[in-house]
């Protein structure tokens, strides 16, 4: 594949590897995409396959630091796991290794994947390669920044409510959230198990497709893993659009309208649709995600896992001290919220109701997909925002997940594509499709790409490889 050719020499020629490492480390001073960068660590996976036939042979890639790569740290951006070194690799990473790819580092993320800015990482600060005063998005912000800046041809991220697509959108690249269960979660640190999936970020659609087909497939080690269902149905040409976007930045609305016009120009039939469910996506999503987080993060108690206090009066105090020192503000907030909605007396009001409304969301999307082949929405209702107090509050960030979290609740695949520029910053658009229609999404992205190309940010790495 032509797009990959330029990357093959990184590991073939020691001089080029040294040059590559130096360039990345140099750019990193400004960007902060990686929590750990070491191209020497990951040795290529060996199997009986003919070496030259490996499709990703010697291709470097980056991995979000909540996905296990043997020998690398697995911090989840948290003080709780700052010193944890993974003894094994995630299935997705193993499969990439078998195909010849080599992980060069672990990327920064919001602590345990909770956030939309990567500013919730306790271990580093990642900036947007288009404007260093702004966030790269989150929670897979490090992966998005590294790909956008040309440090790697692709990266793995995880997407629980938009954590691959939103940073892809903020950095002006492609981000695929596959169908729930199509990519094994074995080796992905659990946050909200019924919603999350490992996803891929890249500047190139062909690479995205190759990586997706490399990592997808049934894995007995993941309880919710599924066989890929291939559909014979040819991908259709009808796109549902939302005529009325509320609470969305006018600059994003403008790009959205332009994208819909481009769809028509490219031969699609554009059909206005109503998504009433957008009113309840955020309450349903955050009820379920927080509830599952409170259960999944119960394992961090300073004994089995996690930061250990020097002393404690009794076992309970040991656990409390560990969690107090190990977790950041956003993680504590979500654990408390999740514990509250699961408490006896409140469960029917919140958790059970949210699960029933999740059925409503699935049913409404099923109905819409009888009429259209894709749904087009913005990825995020605002432009990439500033670091710190000039940006969005934690609550504003949560309510802004409405377009992306819809796909996680229904389990369907979704793809962030570049949707043009506004005030020098990228704006991302999202395509949704029925389950297992990843190829149809990528085909549509290919059709849009001449009109909406993946631009290079000012910090793009000059690679003379």
């Amino acid at each position, binding site marked *: 594949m032509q797009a990959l050719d330029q990357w093959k020499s990184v590991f073939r020629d020691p001089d080029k590897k040294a040059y590559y490492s130096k360039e990345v480390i140099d750019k990193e001073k400004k960007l902060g995409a990686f929590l750990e960068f070491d191209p020497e660590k990951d040795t290529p996976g060996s199997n009986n396959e003919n070496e030259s036939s490996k499709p990703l042979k010697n291709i470097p890639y980056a991995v979000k630091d909540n996905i296990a790569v043997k020998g690398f740290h697995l911090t989840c951006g948290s003080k709780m796991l700052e*010193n*944890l*070194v993974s*003894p*094994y690799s995630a299935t997705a990473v193993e499969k990439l290794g078998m195909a010849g790819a080599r992980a060069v580092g672990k990327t920064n993320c919001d602590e345990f994947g909770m956030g939309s800015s990567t500013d919730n990482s306790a271990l580093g600060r990642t900036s947007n390669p288009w404007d260093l005063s702004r966030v790269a998005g989150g929670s897979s912000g490090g992966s998005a920044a590294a790909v956008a800046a040309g440090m790697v041809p692709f990266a793995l991220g995880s997407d629980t409510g938009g954590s691959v697509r939103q940073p892809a959108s903020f950095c002006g690249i492609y981000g695929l959230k596959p169908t*729930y*269960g199509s990519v094994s979660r074995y080796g992905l640190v659990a946050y909200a198990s*019924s919603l999350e999936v490992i996803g891929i970020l890249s500047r190139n659609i062909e690479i995205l497709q190759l990586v997706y087909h490399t990592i997808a497939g049934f894995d007995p080690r993941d*309880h*919710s893993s*599924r066989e890929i269902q291939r559909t014979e149905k040819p991908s259709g040409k009808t796109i549902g659009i939302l005529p009325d976007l509320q609470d969305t930045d006018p600059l994003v609305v403008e790009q959205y309208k332009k994208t819909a016009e481009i769809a028509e120009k490219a031969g699609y039939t554009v059909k206005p649709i109503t998504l009433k469910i957008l*009113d309840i996506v*955020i*309450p*349903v999503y*955050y009820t379920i995600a927080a509830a599952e987080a409170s259960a999944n993060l*119960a394992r961090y*108690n*300073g*004994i089995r896992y996690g930061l250990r*206090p*020097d*002393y*404690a009066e*009794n*076992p*309970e*105090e*040991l656990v*409390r001290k560990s*969690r*107090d020192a190990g977790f950041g*503000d956003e993680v*504590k*907030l979500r*654990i*408390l*919220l*999740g*514990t*509250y909605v699961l*408490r006896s007396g409140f469960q029917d009001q*919140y958790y*059970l109701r*949210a*699960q*029933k*409304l*999740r*059925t*409503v969301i*699935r049913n409404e999307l099923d109905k819409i997909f009888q009429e259209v082949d894709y749904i087009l929405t913005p990825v995020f209702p605002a432009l990439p925002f500033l670091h710190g107090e000039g940006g969005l509050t*934690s*609550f504003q960030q*949560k309510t802004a997940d409405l377009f992306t979290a819809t796909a996680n*609740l*229904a*389990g*369907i695949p979704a793809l962030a594509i570049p949707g043009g520029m506004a005030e020098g910053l990228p704006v991302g658009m999202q395509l949704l499709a029925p*389950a297992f229609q990843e190829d149809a999404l990528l085909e549509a992205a290919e059709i849009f790409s001449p009109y909406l190309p993946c631009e290079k940010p000012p910090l793009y790495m000059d690679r003379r490889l």
Partner: protein
Amino acid sequence: MKREELEITAELAYIALNEREIPRLQEEIAKILEHFSIMEKWEINNLQPTTHAFMEKNRLRNDTAGEPQYPDALLANAEELEDRFIVIPNVL
């Protein structure tokens, strides 16, 4: 959210709260719960809950013995070891 409710929840979640955090968390959680209240306006009668997007049934592995996986690499992550035991602070 009442302070008492927050404190009970924190107790259940094994989260230690300090005086500085309490008012901020009370306000933040109250704001989120208020946002959640829109769920009450939607009809949920006769609906089954969705727990996972596609999972139809539980899948279990065969109940057979397997090889232990990487015990040494796991133990290497412990802060302190005594032989092959993990040392934790004396809490009794």
